């Protein structure tokens, strides 16, 4: 298997300054870019995120929450971030769509290249980033509105064209929820079960046609049956989207992910916790033949 850094078109984009975050013309240029890209074969791995030496420090913290994190995430892959609690997996994830910007004073150094463009570059607007990179949270967080309005909110605010009923139906179908809710679209989303609420949140995220979906322990509040449904859904969504998932459930990471990053946490002399990646590789290798003994201890259940 040959891994290449990024395909030539993305490199051109970087050189020509034609980048994904340039306002309204953006969608058109991205479409053309994809149309002109050389046909992707199985042996070519397109890099979506290239994280280089990332360090994140929260305001008033004396030590960084994560430090020296470098790895790449590929297109149409599920990348799992695993590791013990408090090791900075969520912090890492929230950097990928700049949700950490919402905490004023958070300091991010290093680089995250998204399709070759610096996500934290001076001309990049966090709002535009989040339109391309969606997020699903740990606890289902539907809006206190109808199921229909939950889906329609995203497309409306980003000014999506087209028939809203159609957009809503497509998103709910993609979220594997349509058959269950098609007769009660006007009902309040809070009346759904936890698993349905989480699939609604995924469908809501799909409705704005993102490129990447970030998932922060999406199944931790759900029962095994709902979890199974969401895992099936993720494997299906992989065909069209790239997914990064934080999970505490190692079996889940083993079942669904292509690549896995294993995080550990280290304490400094003042007990400040700093997370870092000790191993990043194919999921199969991480779980069967890890290079680092800490990874082995964790995945076999001797630690954490």
């Amino acid at each position, binding site marked *: 298997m040959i891994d290449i850094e990024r395909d030539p078109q993305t490199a051109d984009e970087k050189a020509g300054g034609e980048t994904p975050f340039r306002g309204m013309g953006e969608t058109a240029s991205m479409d053309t870019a994809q149309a002109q890209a050389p046909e992707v074969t199985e042996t070519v791995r397109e890099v979506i995120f290239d994280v280089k030496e990332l360090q994140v420090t929260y305001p008033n913290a004396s030590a960084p929450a994560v430090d020296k994190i470098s790895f790449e995430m590929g297109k149409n892959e599920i990348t799992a971030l695993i590791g013990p609690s408090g090791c900075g997996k969520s912090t890492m994830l929230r950097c990928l769509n700049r949700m950490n910007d919402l905490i*004023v004073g958070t300091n991010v150094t290093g680089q995250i290249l998204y399709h070759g463009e610096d996500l934290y570059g001076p001309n990049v607007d966090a709002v535009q980033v*989040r*339109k391309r990179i969606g997020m699903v949270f740990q606890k289902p967080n539907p809006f206190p509105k109808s199921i229909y309005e939950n889906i329609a909110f*995203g497309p409306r*605010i980003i000014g999506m064209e087209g028939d809203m009923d159609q957009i809503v139906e497509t998103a709910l179908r993609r979220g594997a929820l349509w058959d269950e809710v098609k007769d009660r679209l006007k009902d309040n989303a809070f009346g759904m079960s936890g698993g349905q609420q989480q699939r609604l949140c995924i469908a809501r995220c799909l409705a704005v046609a993102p490129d990447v979906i970030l998932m922060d322990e999406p199944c931790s509040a759900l029962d095994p049956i709902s979890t199974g449904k969401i895992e099936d859904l993720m494997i299906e969504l992989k065909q069209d989207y790239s997914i990064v998932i934080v999970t505490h459930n190692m079996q889940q990471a083993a079942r669904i992910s292509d690549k896995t990053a294993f995080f550990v946490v280290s304490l400094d002399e003042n007990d400040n916790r700093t997370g870092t990646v000790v191993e990043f590789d194919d999921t199969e290798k991480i779980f069967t033949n890890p290079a680092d003994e800490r990874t082995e201890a964790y995945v076999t259940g001797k630690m954490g």
Partner: protein
Amino acid sequence: MSATVDAPRVAVQVIPPADSRAKLRERAFEAALIFALLISLAMLIALFIDVFTKGLPGLSPEFVTDKASAFPANAGIATSLLGTLWLMVVCIVFIVPIGLASAVYLEEYGTDYADQRTWTGRMIGRFNTFVEVNIQNLAAVPSIVYGILGLAFLVRGPLDLGKIILAGGLTLGLLVLPVVIIAGREALRAVPSSIREGSMALGATKWQTIWRQVLPAAVPGVATGVILALSRAIGETAPLLLLGAATFNTQNPSGIFSAISALPLQINTWISAPGADFQALAASAIIVLLVVLVLMNSVAIYLRNRYEQKW
């Protein structure tokens, strides 16, 4: 080799007998609590009995539709009731946008600009703290002080509006504005941050998030706060007296530029007038005011129960 054998089951008293003195203390404490509650309840009941025995006979449709009159037999509350309604209209139009905007700034934006790492951020942070502390203080300022303020700045002084309903309504609005801001902030704070994050993660701007998700979710709390603020404003007499409102006014107000008249002012006039007839009129007017207050509070309770979001 050993075998396990059940121990013989003999009844042993393990639980000590009840401590009767501790039980007595508990009862006494409970009784003291109920007594404290009954004192305030007794005052309310005494007020009701007094007002209803004096005022109920005088209540009639004519009492509500008649204008003020120097003769007790012809006197009604039409003028003052209309005046109160107009005052509330001015008040609500003033406090809802101003109070809500202040609450949104303090709750949603205030902390964002107060970045402790920069000099301007620290100054803004200090300013926000100053404002917050003073809003709490303003809510406790005696209403008569607002009357002085209204007289100096609205009726006379810079705005020079005269003794009109607009000036009265704005004065009452200033009086209850802190209550609205505090209630608004609580309502905004009750909207979980996961809703804001969910909205922002879809690519919504902060403004879109606040306007289309946070504020609609906070409406029941805000509405409750506004109604409770209005029910405080509706009973205020002192600031209106200080503005120099006429105590005897037979001209029904036709809008916000009419002369000030208000139900509590009318009650005050009648109570200070000589003669049992006027005392009875005052009691009847108090009943009307109480009914209006109960109605407003019922609406607030209904809104809270009907639309409150369980997160």
